[in-house]
């Protein structure tokens, strides 16, 4: 019954493979991406997945086969001494090395497009900017006011000045009439967003799965993150008067759970790290976003009970 071990290994491996195979059908897979660079990210993901899957099956297959063969033969006595096989060793070093170098090269452009300072959208009149301050266990977001955004379209230098938050004296970082919102990141379709990411206490990570962006928030630093969205999921619900996500433009309803997009924390930050969620709202047009922003500002300036 030494066949027990190869059988066990074989079963576990097949089970793991099986989970991967049925995952998309069960909804345990990547959500569809909405950003302009999401396609590249996903392509790389699949390339690496197939390469590793191939080698996984190959190596595990060889292992199980040999386990089975050894179990089937009578005990051979003293183990034979193998002097190694230079050709084989060369092969199984060079092939993965070449593959890895290829992968490293192939991903450079995708990484650069998402992360390099030089490739980030310029903070001019058209790029949306916001300051996201992560803290245990929520996301505090500050938006410039509608009038400030208007001023940026007329004088892009103001937008650029805004983006230099890291250089501002500490007490100038907050502005009198910014719009403070918690756990909600709003933008509009087809426009680039520049987020200035900060944290008030420990490491957090700004992660929007549907956008395929992840950026650690490091204490003491202001880190730029950019993204965009090619699809909208938010519209003002006339029944409630609130802007709600989950909006499906084709059906005209707000019940599509696939269009409720999360902002999650991807760097362990304490007890409620797994519950440190926000929501990602993409408005259909800049005007709709500005309307929401004006309303949020109004709510913030409420003077009546």
């Amino acid at each position: 019954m030494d066949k027990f071990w190869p059988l066990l290994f074989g079963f576990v491996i097949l089970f793991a493979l099986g989970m991967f195979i049925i995952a998309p059908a069960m909804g345990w897979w990547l959500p569809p991406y909405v950003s302009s660079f999401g396609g590249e990210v996903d392509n790389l993901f699949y390339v690496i997945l197939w390469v590793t899957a191939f080698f996984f099956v190959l190596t595990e297959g060889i292992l199980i086969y040999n386990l089975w063969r050894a179990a089937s033969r009578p005990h051979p006595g003293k183990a034979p001494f193998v002097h190694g096989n230079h050709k084989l060793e060369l092969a199984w070093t060079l092939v993965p090395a070449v593959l890895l170098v290829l992968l490293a090269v192939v991903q450079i452009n995708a990484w650069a497009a998402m992360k390099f300072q030089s490739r980030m959208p310029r903070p001019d009149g058209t790029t949306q900017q916001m300051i996201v301050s992560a803290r245990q266990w929520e996301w505090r977001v500050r938006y410039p006011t509608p009038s400030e955004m208007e001023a940026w379209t007329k004088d892009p230098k103001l937008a650029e000045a805004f983006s230099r938050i890291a250089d501002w004296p500490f007490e100038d970082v907050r502005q009198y009439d910014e719009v403070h919102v918690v756990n909600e990141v709003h933008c509009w379709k087809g426009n680039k967003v520049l987020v200035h990411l900060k944290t008030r206490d420990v490491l957090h990570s700004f992660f929007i799965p549907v956008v395929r962006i992840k950026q650690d928030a490091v204490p003491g630093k202001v880190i730029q993150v950019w993204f965009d969205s090619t699809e909208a999921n938010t519209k003002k619900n006339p029944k409630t008067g609130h802007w709600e996500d989950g909006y499906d433009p084709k059906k005209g309803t707000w019940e599509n759970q696939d269009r409720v997009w999360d902002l999650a924390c991807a760097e362990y930050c304490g007890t409620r790290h797994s519950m440190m969620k926000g929501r990602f709202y993409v408005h259909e047009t800049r005007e709709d976003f500005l309307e929401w922003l004006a309303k949020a500002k109004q709510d913030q300036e409420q003077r009546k009970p």
Partner: protein
Amino acid sequence: MMTFARKLWMLLLAVLPLLAGCGGDTYPESLRYPLRTDPIINPLDLPRDEKGGTSLSVPDPPGTFPVMSMKQVREPSYPLNIVASKALDPRDIPTGERSTLQSKLEEVFGTPANPKVAVPSGWEASEVVGRAQTELKLDAETLAKGSRLYRLHCLHCHGLAGDGRGPTSFWVNPHPRDYRMGIYKFTSTALGGIIRPQRADLMRTLKTGIEGTAMPAFNVLPDDQLEAMVSYVIHLSLRGEVELRMLSGLNPQNKTVNDIDESFQTMVRAFTTQWLNAQGKILAVPDYPYSDQQLEASVKRGEAYWKEWQCYVCHKDFGREALFNYDFWGTLARPANMTNGYYRGGRRPVDLYWRVLGGIPPAGMPANDNRLGGHPKVDGKNDQIWDVVNFLQVLPYRSMREKYGIQID
């Protein structure tokens, strides 16, 4: 050589952790609210210097919690040792009386898995409790939902019985709210007597969190879940206060309760009534009388009132050098730093108005409703409290201070 049987055992052991399952999301059925054991201290006995504060410039160290046990309070070196003789130890009460009290509390307030606010129909309190089940949403179904959500989201800080002494609480400063006194800091309720919060106040705290503390915002949760959580908090609050007053009155040092049954019923009725009566009684906020052009003058007046009303005594240097005080719960808190732009009770002007006008009684912030012998001057042209609010709103921002000539350095 490993026998087949042994292999099978190993396999079972490896698989066993999977059988642990995710468990339910409710408290275990057999879990009961434990009777309070931390000492009961009258807030008025807490140490204060002649100006009403303390000389502490640092809070208690991380990993500690003031007022956990009588043993702690009796330590000679402990800061609160000064109240040791006046503090009431619940364990001084005879066991029989304590278990009677616990079963009475369970009869009315249930257990964590099955919370309720319900009294037998013969009780005098049955009418108000019936009203509370609808008006304060304290029906069993809402409370059960709230209990599950509380266990998931709130328990680790606010504790099983809402004592603010959950495992995380030792490590955060300020410490989480202890619901068992039935009072809260950031209320919009009209002044006079014991101030209970509006349900809307508790909702506001849940939705926006408290910036500058460890209380996060829960606005990502749907409204019906938040309402259930508020209901459960009110339930814990009612239970906690009845327990507190009963333990206080049964204590040999302070024996005011002679008939447990009667006192218990009276207290349930009294506190439920107070909560009910507070709902809807909002502290009036006069209309904002200023235009944009009048803002500067208003801010300047607000600055003058800051000096005239001596806000700087507690909010030393605009709050930047404020010292810690003991609040009603025996924890340390300090007057807010008005220059950092964080407002714990909410950043809307109306929230600031409520804080300045109504004060924050349990934390020692006085109400400013009698500055002019009654009401702040409101004649459609000026409002002293709005002036102060405008000043406070401008204070954290250097560009605005320069614009209006406000010097803080």
